[in-house]
C-alpha cells in the first residue's frame, strides 16, 4: 500500500511573468486518494496539465511508477496509466455516451486500417469487447440508461460521470479528477464520493483537485495545499485543516493581525 506511484520533482511553470508553479514537489502513494486544494489561481490545474503532458514544465520532472515521465506527450502519459478529467467538461459532444467510452478504449486496443477494412475475426472480437467494456463502464458509473444519448444532451452530473467512465476506459493506474464536484448539489456530491471511493477500492489511485473542502477532507488520505504556485502544506486532512499557513491562504490576513 505504501509504495510510491507518482513523484513530482521541483515542478516549475511560468506564463510570461506569472509563476503558475514554483518548485512543487509531492509524492502520491499507490492506492491512496490524494487531494490537491488551494484558492483559485493557485496552480492546481496547471499542475494537472504538466502531469498529463498538455504543458511542458519549465523545470522539474515527474517520476511515475519508478520511471521518468516524458514531457509534452499526453498520449504517452495516458499509455503509462495516467487518465484525467477536465475542470470544464470535455466530452465528445456529438458522439453517444457509449461511443465516448469506446474511444477511451483506443489506447488499449490495436485494430488498424487493414483490420477495419477487412473486418477479420480478431477485429470483430475486439469491437465486441470494446462495446461490452463500454457498457460495463456505463453501468459502473450509473448511467447505463443513457448509453445512446449524445454526450452533449446529457444532464450535467451525468456528463461528469461519463467523463470519469471515459477516463477509466483507458485502464489508468492514476486517475486525476479536476474539480469533479463543481456545480453539483449535495446529493450528487455524496453519490460522487461513493463512486470515487469505489474506484479506489477497485485498485486505482486517485488524485483529486477540489474546492469542496468537506468532500476533500472526508475523502482524501492526504492533502497538499497550493497557494500562488507553491506547496504550502502536505499532510493528512485533520492536520492540514489546522495549519496556520493554509488558514491564511484561504481566509486572507496574517496570523498575527
Amino acid at each position, binding site marked *: 500500500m505504501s509504495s510510491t506511484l507518482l513523484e513530482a520533482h521541483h515542478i516549475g511553470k511560468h506564463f510570461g511573468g506569472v509563476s503558475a508553479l514554483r518548485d512543487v514537489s509531492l509524492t502520491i502513494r499507490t492506492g491512496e486518494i490524494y487531494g490537491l486544494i488551494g484558492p483559485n489561481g493557485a496552480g492546481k490545474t496547471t499542475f494537472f496539465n504538466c502531469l*498529463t503532458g498538455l504543458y511542458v514544465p519549465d523545470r522539474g520532472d515527474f517520476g511515475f511508477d519508478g520511471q521518468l515521465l516524458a514531457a509534452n506527450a499526453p498520449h504517452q502519459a495516458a499509455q503509462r496509466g495516467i487518465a484525467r478529467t477536465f475542470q470544464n467538461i470535455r466530452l*465528445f459532444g456529438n*458522439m453517444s455516451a457509449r461511443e465516448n467510452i469506446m474511444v477511451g478504449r483506443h489506447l488499449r486496443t490495436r485494430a488498424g486500417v487493414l483490420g477495419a477494412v477487412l473486418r477479420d475475426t480478431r477485429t470483430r472480437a475486439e*469491437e465486441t469487447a*470494446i462495446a461490452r467494456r463500454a457498457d460495463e463502464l456505463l453501468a459502473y458509473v450509473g448511467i447505463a440508461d443513457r448509453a445512446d444519448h*449524445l454526450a452533449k444532451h446529457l444532464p450535467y452530473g451525468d456528463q461528469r460521470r461519463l467523463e470519469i467512465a471515459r477516463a477509466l476506459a483507458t485502464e489508468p493506474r492514476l486517475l486525476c479528477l479536476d474539480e469533479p464536484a463543481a456545480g453539483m448539489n449535495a446529493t450528487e456530491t455524496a453519490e460522487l464520493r461513493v463512486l470515487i471511493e469505489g474506484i479506489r477500492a477497485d485498485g486505482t489511485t486517485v488524485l483529486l483537485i477540489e474546492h469542496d473542502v468537506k468532500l476533500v477532507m472526508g475523502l482524501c488520505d492526504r492533502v497538499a495545499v497550493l497557494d500562488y504556485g507553491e506547496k504550502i502544506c502536505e499532510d493528512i486532512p485533520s492536520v492540514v485543516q489546522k495549519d496556520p499557513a493554509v488558514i491564511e491562504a484561504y481566509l486572507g490576513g496574517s496570523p498575527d493581525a
Partner: protein
Amino acid sequence: MKTWLSPRSTAGLIMIAGALLALPFLAASGGQAWVRILDFAILYVFLALGLNIVVGFAGLLDLGYIAFYGVGAYVYALLASPHFGLHWPIWAILPIGAFVACLFGMLLGAPTLKLRGDYLAIVTLGFGEIIRIFLNNLDAPVNITNGALGLNLIDPVRLGSLSLAGTSEWGALSLSGPQKYYFLLVTLAIVVVVINLRLQHSRIGRAWQAIREDEVAAKAIGINTRNIKLLAFAMGASFGGIAGGIFAAMQGFISPESFSLTESVMILAMVVLGGMGHIPGVIFGALLLAVLPEVLRYAVVPAQKALFGSVLIDPESLRMLVFGLALVLVMRFRPAGLWPSPERKRELAEVSE
C-alpha cells in the same frame, strides 16, 4: 450484431446493382458524351469520398485536395506515355500513384498538424497551388512534366489483352470505351465505398471523430493525434491519387490546368452539400454537382433560344450562378447538407429535454 442483410436491404442492393448495370446503356442512347459525363461523375464520387475522410471524418478542412488527384494523374502519365517512353501496366502504376499521393498527403499533413479551421484551410489551399505551379514549371532545366503544354498520348487502361479505349465486341454485346471505363470506375468506387463505411465504424474512425470533436480530450485519453491525423491525410490523398491515375488514362491528355483551385472547391462543395461525414450523402452530392452542370449545358441553350430567340446568357456563367445560389440556399435551409446522417441531424436539432 447483424451477420446478414435483411430481405429489404438485399432487395435494395439488387435494385442498385441493376441500375448500375443498366445506366451506361441508358446513357449511351443519348450519345457517348453522356456516358463520359457518367464516368466523370463517378470519378468525382471517388474524389469526394477521399476528401470526406479528411474533412468529414477527421474534421480537417482541406482546400488543396486536388493536388493529390494531380499527383496521381502525373504519376500515371509519366509512367505510361511516350514522354519518357515508359509503358507500365496499370496494376503497377495505380499503387505507385496511390503511394506517391499518400507521401504528398503526409508532406502536407506533417507541417499542419497544429493548425485547425481557417488556418489549416489557407495552408492547404497554398499547398494545392504549389503543386499546380510545380507541374506548370517542371519543364526546365530537365523536362519532367512538359509544363503548361501537358502530357499527351497517355496509354489507356489495359486489363490483360483488353484495352479500355475504343469499342470492343463480344458477340451481341458491344461496349464503347467510356462504357468500359464506367464498369472499371463503378467497381473501384464500390471498393472505396466499402472501405469508407468500414473505416467509419471502427477504432480508427472513432479516433478521427474524437479529434474532430475535441482534440485536447482526444490526446488526454491517449490517442496519438499526430499519427491519426496523418493517417487521415494519407488515406484521403491515396484515394485522390488513384482517381487521378484513372483520369489520366481516360483522358489520354493532362495539363496543370485540370488541377486548379476551382476543382478543389468543387469537391469540397460536393462533400458539404451532400452531407459531411455521411457516405450516401457525399455520393449524392458528388453525382448531383457533377451531372447538374452538364444537364444545364444541354438544357440552357435550347431553352433560351425558344424563349428569347437567341442565347443571352452563356451556359458556363449561368452554371456558376446556379451553383452559388444552390450553395447559399442549402447552407441557409439545410446546413447539415442535402442528405445528412441521422446523427448529424440530431446534432443540429434543438434539445427537446
